[in-house]
């Protein structure tokens, strides 16, 4: 029952109502120690889950509608708030689509800087997810360690962008800040620390037989079902599908960097968590390479940089902090539509921006990875034990605000 197995999948079966004398209905959330901003309607037969209905929307902000009422540039901080722990990646999707509409290409250095920040976001977002997964099993040490070590990446991001989480770093045609002079050296120390800590994580959490017994073989997602359900991110790769929007190479500097996308075959909860650990290691190596190869040059596209008054241009070159040209307040892309896909920490984010030539978008469609992974919360826990629900929830790394938008 658990995790399908034969690749057959039918929504009819999954949505058919379960009831009867033996069924015990529990409402997990929205006011519950572990539910997050959502509710699970769990139906149990003894200790076995027969049905889970995730009820989302508790942090829905109708971002797509709000975005229609604002000028293009104002939507960058708006969409950032869907996932503030992974903010550069989600804004990058929007900025990428906007750049396609505007026909602007960021300079190479800006691409590298975006990549560096994206990967730092990925690391800290994975740490966040692992920490939450830890506390779902009442492993408070994992929770505290992950959240403590996240601080390092937030600190680095703050030094780069000026804000801990809500970076608003990528703008059409470039980025807002240049790299601080001592960034490379500070990053190297942080990276070495992180690599060492990952070994301790392994000893106290991932290799701990107690934790393994909670995760191993629980919530198995096989390759075919993962593909059919349109799952993205580490959850997909832990089931053996080598898919990553970074491999498309159409954003950031990923086409010039050498990195391996790790995959796992098991597809169970442990695989999903270990997948994140591997991805942290990959991200560290990507940032290292990006810092190594970082080209010199401007960080804002020339067509916008030229529009600045000469005095400001000098200042930008001196301080490394971009000033916006006045045109940014009323960007008018030509009518048309563009899509963009960016690999966030939790998977691929999809943006579709429609322009009708006015300074406000006609329609912005955003599908976040958590929303696409939502189906897992419905599919995986079936047939598992009640306590597995939270092991699975933790391993899927579902982030309600991101899904609700």
């Amino acid at each position, binding site marked *: 029952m658990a995790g399908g197995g034969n690749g057959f999948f039918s929504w009819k079966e999954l949505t058919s109502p379960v009831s009867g004398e033996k069924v015990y209905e529990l409402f997990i959330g929205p006011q519950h120690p572990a539910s997050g901003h959502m509710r699970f309607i769990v139906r149990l037969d003894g200790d076995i889950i027969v049905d889970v209905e995730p009820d989302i929307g508790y942090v829905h902000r109708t971002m797509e509608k709000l975005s229609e009422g604002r000028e293009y540039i104002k939507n960058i901080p708006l969409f950032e708030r869907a996932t503030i722990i992974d903010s550069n990646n989600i804004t990058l999707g929007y900025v990428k689509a906007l750049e396609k509409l505007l026909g602007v290409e960021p300079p190479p250095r800006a691409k590298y800087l975006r990549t560096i920040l994206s990967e730092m976001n990925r690391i800290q977002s994975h740490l966040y997810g692992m920490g939450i997964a830890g506390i779902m099993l009442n492993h408070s*040490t994992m929770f505290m*360690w992950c959240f403590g070590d996240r601080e390092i990446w937030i600190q680095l991001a703050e030094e780069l962008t000026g804000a801990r989480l809500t970076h608003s770093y990528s703008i059409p045609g470039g980025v807002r800040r240049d790299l601080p002079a001592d960034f490379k050296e500070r990053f190297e120390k942080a990276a070495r620390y992180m690599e060492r800590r990952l070994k301790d994580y392994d000893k*106290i959490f991932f290799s701990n037989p107690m934790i393994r017994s909670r995760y191993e073989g629980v919530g198995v997602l096989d390759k075919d079902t993962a593909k059919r359900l349109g799952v993205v991110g580490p959850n997909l790769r832990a089931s053996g599908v080598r898919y990553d929007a970074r491999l498309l190479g159409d954003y950031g500097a990923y086409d010039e960097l050498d990195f391996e996308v790790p995959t796992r075959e098991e597809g169970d909860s442990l695989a999903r968590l270990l997948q994140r650990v591997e991805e942290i290691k990959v991200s560290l190596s990507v940032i290292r390479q990006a810092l190594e190869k970082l080209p010199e040059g401007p960080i804002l596209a020339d067509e916008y940089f030229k529009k600045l008054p000469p005095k400001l241009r000098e200042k930008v070159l001196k301080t490394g902090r971009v000033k916006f040209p006045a045109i940014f307040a009323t960007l008018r892309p030509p009518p048309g539509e563009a899509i963009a896909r960016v690999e966030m920490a939790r998977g691929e984010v999809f943006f579709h921006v429609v322009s009708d030539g006015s300074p406000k978008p006609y329609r912005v469609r955003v599908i976040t990875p958590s929303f696409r992974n939502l189906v897992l919360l419905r599919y995986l826990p079936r047939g598992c034990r009640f306590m597995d629900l939270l092991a699975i929830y933790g391993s899927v790394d579902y982030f309600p605000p991101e899904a609700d938008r």
Partner: protein
Amino acid sequence: MWLELIIRLLLSPYIFAPLIYPGLVTALAILLTLIWLERKFAAKVQLRYGPLYVAKQIGGAPQLLADAIRFMFQEVIVPRNADKVPFLLAPVLAMSLGILPIVFIPVAPGFAGILINFSLPAALALSALMPITIILMAWSANNKFTIHGGVREAFITIAYEIALFVSALSMSMLYSSLSLQDIVEKQALVPGILLNPLAALTFFVAMLMSAGKLPFDIAEGEQEIVAGPYTEYTGILYGLVMGAGYVQLYVSSLIFTELFLGGWHPLFEALGELYPPLGGIALFLKTYLVLAFAVFLRCVYGRYRIDHALRIGWRRLIPLSILALLLSLGLRFVGVVV
């Protein structure tokens, strides 16, 4: 004259043992310091400070006192659908039953609240009553989460109890006595843990299960069932049920120390002449060490799934404890212990 009488009365084992040491006062002191220590340990491992601002100079040690006062004055809410009498009675019962086994536990030769030759089974039997009160809480609160927790508690109880009793029995077999006092006396030179480490391991794990401490806080299961049987409790009643678990852990640790760690040896030889419970200081320190280790495990473990815990109980602990029993038999046969 009166004063002397009162002092003599106070110092007599029948008053001193249940009231002061190892009884109520010590239990309360342990309760207050142990929870603080647990939080401090967790904080240190997790690279933070833990309770601090209640009294910064002594690391926030009176934190639990502050918490207790807060519990005391918090409103006690009784849910409308709850069965009121058992709901209110169960926490009190849990605390009393938790602390009751102490009267059988000697802290020095001949120094116990009730001195009998069957102190080991008597103490274990009394502490085995505790789960019933937890199930009573769960049932009377009439809430889906509490009932789920109560069922879990019932499952867990039968899984650990056999192992707990058999491993204790293996020690009494080794020393051919059911009296804790005799068992301790025979460990004057070699503590029991060296002779039968297997029994010590099974007893310790079963003890963690009985007290519902990590990794076996399954009945409480905060992440799944809010607080299990304790979900509906507030104020001082919650304080009682939370304390009951720690008291139970204290009692089991006392028994563990007497069975495996040589009880009041070696300090008793030096101080016992003066006043017997002074020798019990060694017992106290050892017990505290056991307690500290038990609560330290919170930093290392999460929570086992219920079927895993049951499997550990039935498939691992029970066979291992029977093996420990055989080991004891073998040791007796060889004549290691007279």
